[in-house]
């Protein structure tokens, strides 16, 4: 297979989910025979380019057109399609994300490809091409066959380890035609928390619920998140009430996370909240109600008052890290 991996960057840094996608591509190339080309759009920091090679790229292409730095869906799709043809790819791999999904869908039409999203493992190639994907918001999986010649796989976060032993590869800069028509949707402004761990990318998430009573009580959540280098999340009522920004809302109708550790503070564990966190490797629940449903989905739990427990936990973690 000739594999092209489309990667995303955040403020010049390659996202971890994209490094996972490259590593997935490398494993697929090894399994099927073939090579992995990686495409970065916009500017990527030089030291990060090394990580791309280490994750298993055989070739790296970059289109450093500044217009591509932000997520212009049609422009990205147009560019990826050109490079896909240029390198003679027959499979496109990318990380599932809000941009990745939108770009992949347009590419499925452009490339006449079969697209599978939420992929959680390498394909079975013994009878065609069959991959497992997560469905029903993490409540089930399904084996899905791709029947088209061209294939697109959107990989779910934290389902494939990042490879670090690949060789450093030189970057080839491409200058390709990019017509104005693909910028019909104009980005006029952007609002973005800077210096924070991105929630969908995070290895550890600390999340707070309505039991915390108000936004003025989020200081202790922030302290714990900082001590753990974690991203912050919240339940739906918390963002509905405007206590926290919407992009922190986790669950069925919010962000789906898949960290190594999810710490839920004063969240009851409604099924719609669990739908967004059920892919976490470990779940810790802190709740004063021993019958809170979240305990059933947890690995570890503490029954008690969050206002006492959370500051103590932050201290204990700081002590451990010293």
């Amino acid at each position, binding site marked *: 297979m000739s594999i092209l991996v489309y990667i995303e960057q955040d403020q010049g840094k390659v996202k971890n989910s994209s490094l996972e996608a490259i590593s997935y591509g490398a494993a697929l190339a090894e399994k099927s025979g073939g090579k992995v080309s990686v495409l970065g759009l916009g500017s990527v920091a030089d030291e990060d380019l090394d990580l791309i090679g280490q994750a298993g790229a055989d070739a790296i292409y970059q289109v450093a057109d500044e217009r591509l730095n932000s997520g212009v869906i049609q422009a990205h799709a147009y560019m990826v399609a050109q490079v896909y043809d240029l390198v003679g790819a027959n499979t496109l791999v990318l990380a599932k994300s809000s941009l990745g999904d939108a770009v992949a869908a347009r590419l499925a039409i452009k490339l006449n490809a079969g697209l599978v999203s939420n992929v959680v493992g390498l394909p079975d190639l013994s009878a065609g091409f069959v991959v497992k994907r997560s469905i*029903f918001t993490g409540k089930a999986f399904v084996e*899905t066959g791709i029947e088209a010649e061209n294939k697109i796989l959107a990989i779910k976060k934290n389902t494939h380890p990042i490879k670090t032993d690949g060789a450093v590869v030189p970057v080839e800069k491409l200058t390709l035609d990019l017509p104005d028509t693909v910028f019909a949707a104009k*980005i*006029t402004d952007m609002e973005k928390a800077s210096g924070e761990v991105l929630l*969908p*990318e995070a290895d550890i998430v600390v999340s707070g619920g309505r039991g915390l009573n108000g936004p003025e009580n989020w200081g202790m959540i922030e302290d714990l998140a900082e001590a753990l280098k974690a991203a912050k999340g919240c339940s739906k009522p918390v963002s509905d009430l405007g206590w926290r920004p919407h992009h922190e809302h986790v669950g069925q109708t919010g962000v789906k996370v898949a960290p190594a550790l999810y710490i839920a503070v004063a969240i009851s564990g409604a099924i719609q909240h669990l739908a967004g966190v059920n892919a976490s490797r470990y779940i810790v629940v802190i709740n004063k109600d021993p019958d809170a449903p979240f305990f059933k989905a947890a690995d570890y739990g503490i029954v008690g008052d969050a206002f006492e427990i959370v500051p103590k936990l932050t201290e204990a973690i700081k002590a451990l890290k010293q």
Partner: protein
Amino acid sequence: MNILVCITHVPDTTSKIRFTDENTQLDKAGVQFIIGPYDDYALARAVEIKEQTGGSISVLNVGEAETEPTLRKALAIGADEAIRVNAFPRDAHFVAKQIAHQAKEKSYDMILMGRESIDFNGGMVHGMVGELLGIPSISPVMKLEIEGNTAKMAREIEGGKEFIEVGLPFIAGCQEPIAEWKIPNMRGIMSARSKPLQVVDAVSADPRTATKTYELPAPKGEVKIVADVDQLVQLLKNDAKIL
């Protein structure tokens, strides 16, 4: 504004998911079906836009006869007409071809969809239809205002949002807080009965993927309740090997 809203017919968010026929079919016994929650946001915003600008709302579902009560509910919420493309929605590509075909016949000012369906969670159909029709597709959209022939929207990105302007027509994959879900009132329910629900044949389109066997995740082990934070930190360090 003439608005097309595409809705899914999916198990309620509280449903327990099970499979039958040797894990090749969803077990529908005891499952309540609803309008997909993201599609419900799209519909709610369409109703608000229509209140401001006038026009008409069509709702569309690609599905078999069982989805009609869900389309009726959308009519009760405020859509003016419903279209059911009579086919099993075999995959996203198949569905996108049907929607694009219907949209080509009529000229809608905008097509609103959900950010993703909650059964297959692909988040793909809006982008596919956008490409098939050659118009912009934006998702996930959390704010949408129409000013003349321009749509102004906020698209959620990781850690924040992007503000986007696009001319009509366009496609948006919607999510909260674009609007508040609307609950049908008595008058809506009554009038829904007499609103048109048209059943049309599917156009031919090759599905490009095929679902084979389903599988449930491994059951979760017992929770370990600990007495204090020191014990928790030890477990996270020594057993989970995270800290």
